[in-house]
């Protein structure tokens, strides 16, 4: 069961968090969660999370964060890394262990910093340093250093390019965007909704019990509450500019900085526990993790788009649960780019794609767009890779609990997150009205003892 979540506001790269590390940020998110639910000194079953851009010294990032928190030092932890799906996969992992009875409670999350990203030395310098380190005499050590060339001294900064293709995620999505014919207007519409919905959620106090201020930041820095369709329409395209060819005979580029996710710093954490564990501690229960599915696509030679794996994950998840795509009160689809969401929606509506790629008799169909990312998503909030899963799960759990409390019936949310490497994770959360009423403090007419 998902009990609650906590994150720090997400900062734009080079902003308020430029002097803090992944460990600092995750510890802050963790500590806020501990404080919110009174877990000081508690030995939890497990804390699981990770970071996508990670220093080699952070080999035990999560365990070190636990030791820096007020949780019991006897709380075990481990690092998990699945690119942008890290946070969601961590939630699924803990939920599964709870279901198996291996743990009673756990925290899942992640942190990522672009501002404090590790910088590596060149391959040449690295080889020289390793060779010198293994050398047994001063002479052979000097000999190793003599192999150094001036160009070896230049540092390597991490890039968000796909290692196997050399194309950035944006360039990959640009191909998918063109293939699905996603328009600039539709992308800007998603981007605008993301900003306005997230701004409204902040205004309504929705994040009061989901966010702990950090380093002087009290709201997501990337949020533009005053964004407008006109402003978004003015931005120049940044991805897919070469697709048109030298004569411009190909597709026009449509993806701008406005309808893409910015590079961001941040951390998030989600508390999960068995019903008994929660009841014992008088903790509320927001939602349960019903099921989850991870998928991967063959993107290397462009058979499918890099970020299209969630389309497969969702299809298999629905089949296993005997649900249709329309059986949800809410949808949380991670906005790596506005076009990623639109490409997935278009794919689910496409009979050929659903038959040839997903192996379905009929297309999954369309969704009620009023139920999609109702409190904004990554285009507005930002996307600190490993922290996004925790942000989405906490938001989705709280939303679905509110929906159950409001309607007096079980409410259901579909979550999907795409990730580098052609990966994607989908999960279903459900909230029951009784739990939701207790957790959200609202009363409904459907109460029972």
């Amino acid at each position, binding site marked *: 069961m998902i009990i609650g979540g906590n994150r720090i506001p997400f900062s734009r790269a080079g902003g308020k968090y430029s002097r803090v590390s992944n460990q600092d940020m995750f510890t802050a998110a963790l500590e806020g969660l501990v404080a919110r639910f009174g877990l000081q000194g508690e030995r939890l079953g497990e804390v699981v999370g990770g970071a996508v851009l990670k220093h080699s010294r952070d080999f035990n990032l999560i365990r070190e964060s636990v030791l820096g928190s007020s949780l019991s030092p006897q709380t075990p932890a481990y690092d998990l890394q699945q690119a942008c799906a890290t946070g969601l996969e961590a939630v699924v992992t803990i939920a599964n262990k709870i279901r198996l009875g291996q743990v009673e409670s756990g925290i899942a999350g992640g942190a990522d910093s672009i501002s404090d990203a590790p910088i590596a030395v060149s391959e040449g310098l690295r080889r020289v340093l390793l060779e010198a380190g293994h050398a047994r005499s001063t002479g052979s050590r000097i000999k190793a250093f003599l192999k150094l060339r001036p*160009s070896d001294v230049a540092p390597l900064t991490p890039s968000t*390019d796909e290692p*196997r*293709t*050399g*194309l950035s995620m944006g*360039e990959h999505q640009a*191909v998918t965007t063109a293939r699905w014919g996603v328009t600039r207007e539709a992308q800007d519409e998603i981007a605008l909704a993301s900003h306005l919905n997230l701004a409204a959620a902040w205004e309504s106090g929705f994040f009061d019990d989901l966010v702990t201020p950090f380093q002087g930041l009290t709201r997501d820095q990337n949020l533009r509450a005053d964004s407008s369709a006109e402003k978004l329409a003015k931005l120049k395209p940044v991805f897919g500019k*070469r*697709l048109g*060819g*030298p*004569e411009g005979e*190909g597709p026009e580029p449509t993806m701008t900085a406005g309808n893409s996710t910015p590079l961001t710093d941040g951390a998030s954490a989600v508390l999960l526990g068995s019903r008994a564990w929660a009841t014992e501690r008088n903790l509320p229960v927001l939602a349960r993790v019903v099921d989850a599915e991870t998928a991967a696509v063959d993107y*290397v*030679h*462009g*058979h499918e788009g890099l970020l299209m794996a969630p389309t497969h994950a969702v299809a298999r998840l629905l089949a296993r649960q005997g649900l249709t795509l329309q059986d949800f009160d809410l949808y949380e689809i991670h906005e790596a780019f506005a076009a990623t969401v639109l490409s997935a929606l278009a794919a689910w509506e496409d009979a050929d794609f659903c038959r040839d790629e997903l192996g379905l008799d009929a297309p999954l169909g369309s969704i009620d767009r009023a139920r999609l990312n109702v409190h904004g998503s990554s285009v507005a909030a930002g996307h600190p890779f490993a922290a996004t899963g925790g942000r989405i799960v906490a938001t989705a759990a709280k939303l679905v609990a509110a929906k159950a409390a409001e309607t007096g019936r079980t409410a259901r949310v579909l979550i999907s997150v795409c990730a580098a490497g052609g990966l994607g994770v989908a999960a279903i959360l459900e909230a029951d009205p009784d739990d939701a009423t207790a957790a959200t403090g609202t009363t409904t007419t459907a109460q029972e003892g």
Partner: protein
Amino acid sequence: MTAGAPEGYRVERLAAVPGLGGLYAKGATSSARIAATRALPGSVRGGRDGSDPTLPSVALRVDHVATDLPDVADRLARYQRLVGERVGDTIPAGFLHVLGFPVATGLMTRGDFPLPLLGMVHTANSASLVRPVRLGETLAVESWAEGLRPHRRGVTVDLVTRVLVDGEPAYRGVSTYLAKGVHLGSRASDDGSAPSADRSPHAGLPFVPTGRWRLGASTGRDYAAVSGDRNPIHMSALSAKAFGFPRAIAHGMYTAARALAEVGPARGETYDWSVEFAKPVLLPSTVDVSITRGTAGDEGAAGLDRWSYTVQDSRRGRTHLRGAVTRRDRTHD
């Protein structure tokens, strides 16, 4: 795919693979000699009577090329890392080309080879790996020249290299070189009039990038270090200028080997690999790669075992190279 030297060729055995450094010095000398003995500027004469030049009907052969030496293993690993091959004991076709290259160069620097080594342009390459070759196996390498023919910009010649393991052919590579401005006196050009773009199996399909290569200024030097091919046109802007290039150019076989590597494990253990080189890649530069599985109009399972690739400068719309990789170890009916 594995045929040996043409009939009438005799085999000359070498004790070991020659060193490329000495061959380049020799190549420079013989190039100068060829230039000096040309009866007319821009033409090559085979004999004093003015008849067409002939290729030496000789195959150079090295019977024992050991691959179980630590320096070969080290060089192979560096090659694999550089071109993006999986690092391991399986020798990719591109490295067999590298191993055979000095033998082919040895042939081109012989006194009876009629074309100048320096300034020749590698225009195409096709290779077949018919049996997996692994590190530690002892190889026999043989090389000969054949197919001297006119081209609209000069003459072309095929340097064929075979690699045999235990007497069985494992690899056969054909490197086509163009000697620019050289003409066969008695034969009219019958080749090269059609633009090569039209022969591409996927001409007409839109270019969809599946990869991007950022090639640094040292790309030529890095490949030279593992391949031994230190042709000045690859080494620095200064040395390339001497041969008429504005900057250093990437080795064609480096770019083709990267494309082969990007096809990945699906190519199988044995495969055919071809490339045609168009505009050279000036260094440094960023180029887009497009790999397409199957070919238009070639539906079905057999088509799926073929990959076409194109490397281009998308901004200027210039094609650098294009080619194909076809898996051999599966037959489809």
